[in-house]
């Protein structure tokens, strides 16, 4: 088990900077998820840790060792690839045992260890089969088994659940969480699925365009998103973001095209500290923090109904506020008789405020 540290790490492919000045420290035994949209540099970051890509700037440390120029084979890492990368010409047992074979572990000891790991991952009945003869879920477990078998310093996962169907994915997710608790090894896990990151991570690193935008525990990222990008990426559906202006003349409030939100006193304090009168802002409110109301609410929203989507126990109600859409998440049982004009109220404590450039104003 070891920590992983990035100092100003850069990776350029020609003129494309896939990773652009990344800094972080992942402590021993921590489970970190790299989360971000496709093409933001997650896989490249992971491959830099593994040594499959060479950094074009900065340096990388595993434990106390500077590994920036160390070959992949010498980094003592276990990695689960997106396509699992099981060797098609070897049996499941041989696949799992390959890292041990390369380390010249004697055949007996190898067999014992393969049996142990396979039993733990519930694939001990499949050891004689070939990768083509087992299911996707079993392939995924085999791939995990091969990554843990030699007890590596660091565990790397590249979207390991993306090739599983929905039901299996949830099952495999719980299983990985369980495994992580049991083994407790340092892990870096790449995903573009925010729910997966929320469920698994000790800390989430949200990436965008080769940079880490925010790195914090899941609830912190959820409750205090550092930028509008993060706010928009997490949550399902994501946070409602509405452009507006600060108005400090008279009663302090946020004024949008089709809404007025009075500031609470602690919000006003923060706003006065960071912004001036008339400044452009984005106000954010999560769909789950909004509620429908029969009557107009002061400081709330109203507008014509745009869409009603029932998702089982919950429903999404979208209304049109000026030119913007506002989504409200409610329990389907509470779905009111919808009039043409819908009113929505929210808990003012849950309001988020962002500068024009997208940075969060700390209002709490």
């Amino acid at each position: 088990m070891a920590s992983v540290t990035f100092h100003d790490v850069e990776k350029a492919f020609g003129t494309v900077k896939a990773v652009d000045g990344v800094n972080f420290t992942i402590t021993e035994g921590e489970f970190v998820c790299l989360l971000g949209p496709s093409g933001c540099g997650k896989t490249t970051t992971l491959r830099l840790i593994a040594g499959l890509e060479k950094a074009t700037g900065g340096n990388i440390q595993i434990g106390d060792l500077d590994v920036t120029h160390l070959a992949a084979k010498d980094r003592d890492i276990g990695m689960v690839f997106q396509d699992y990368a099981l060797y098609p010409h070897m049996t499941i047992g041989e696949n799992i045992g390959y890292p041990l074979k390369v380390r010249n572990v004697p055949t007996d000891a190898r067999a014992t260890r393969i049996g142990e790991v396979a039993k733990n991952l519930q694939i001990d009945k499949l050891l004689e089969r070939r990768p083509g003869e087992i299911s996707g879920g079993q392939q995924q477990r085999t791939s995990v088994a091969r990554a843990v078998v030699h007890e590596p310093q660091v565990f790397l996962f590249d979207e390991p659940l993306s090739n599983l169907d929905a039901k299996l994915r949830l099952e495999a997710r719980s299983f990985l969480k369980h495994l992580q608790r049991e083994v407790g090894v340092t892990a870096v896990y790449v995903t573009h699925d925010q729910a997966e990151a929320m469920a698994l991570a000790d800390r989430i690193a949200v990436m965008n365009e080769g940079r880490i935008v925010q790195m914090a525990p899941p609830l912190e990222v959820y409750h205090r998103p550092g930028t509008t990008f993060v706010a928009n990426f997490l949550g399902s559906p994501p946070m409602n973001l509405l452009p507006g202006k600060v108005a400090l003349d008279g009663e302090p409030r946020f004024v949008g095209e089709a809404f007025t939100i009075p500031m609470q006193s602690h919000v006003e304090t923060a706003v006065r500290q960071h912004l001036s009168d008339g400044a452009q802002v984005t106000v954010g409110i999560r769909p789950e923090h909004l509620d429908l109301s029969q009557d107009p609410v002061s400081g709330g929203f109203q507008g014509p109904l745009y869409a009603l989507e029932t998702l089982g126990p919950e429903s999404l109600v979208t209304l049109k506020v000026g030119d913007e859409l506002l989504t409200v998440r409610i329990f389907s049982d509470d779905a009111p008789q919808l009039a043409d004009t819908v009113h929505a109220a929210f808990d003012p404590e849950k309001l988020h405020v962002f500068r024009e450039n997208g940075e969060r104003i700390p209002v709490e």
Partner: protein
Amino acid sequence: MTRATRTPPSQAQRAARFVLGRITFYVGSSLFAAFFVLPLLWLTVAPFSTLANLDLRLPDPWSLQNFERVFENGFAIRALVQNSMIQGFGAMLLVTLTATLAAYALSRANIPGTTAITYGLVLFSSVVTGTAAMVPIFLMIVQLGLIDTHLGVILVFTGGLLPAAVFIMRDFVDSIPRSYEESAMVAGASSWRVFRDIALPIVRPGMMVVGVWAFVQVWGGFLIPFILLRDADKMPASVAIYSFYTEAGTPLITLTAAYSLLYTLPVLLLYLFVNWRYGFRFFGGIKS
């Protein structure tokens, strides 16, 4: 009623037309097949007849006399079981191993232009080898002191076959996902080990295809050994078959047929062996 009686004939007509169509198809394709099969049939039957000519008829009586006379021809037999084997397997090994290594490097190295090199080589080889190049090749082999040696023949064949072999092998190597090799690297394997443990076993079907193909090319090649060899003791079967011609230049059909049958057997056996041992496939990788 009238309507009911009118429908069946049209159905029958349709059926008749269908049957007729099928018959035409089968007769046509049989004729087509016969065109290719007849020489093969002749080859399996004629050697056992003492009176063989170019007609296809069952031997009467069946006889092994032709083979006895062929085996008396020490020159032809040595050509078949020794010289053709040395040259065939020699070039096969050299072509397959070199092409595999080259294809692996061309596929995996991060060097721009590797695809251009591959295609360029193939194009170039079709221009350079063959009859037109025999004079310069002959001069080169003389200067290298390899004239009248098995090695000279093997090298010239290898040179001619390599570009196409690299091209075929590259297709196989390209079809292996890189993640196989990468996961082996992360598991702790050196580059050589990755090649030996992962890439090589997966491209083996490709190597077999290339190997058999190269063997067949050399086995049937006439011009190169005919020009580069002097010593009768080193001539391969493709040249030695002319020892069954009369001095006037007409083939002794009985003996030529028997020798030809022996001549085809190794290729057939090689194919069967490879097919049984490794499976013969023309596409890369292994289904996972």
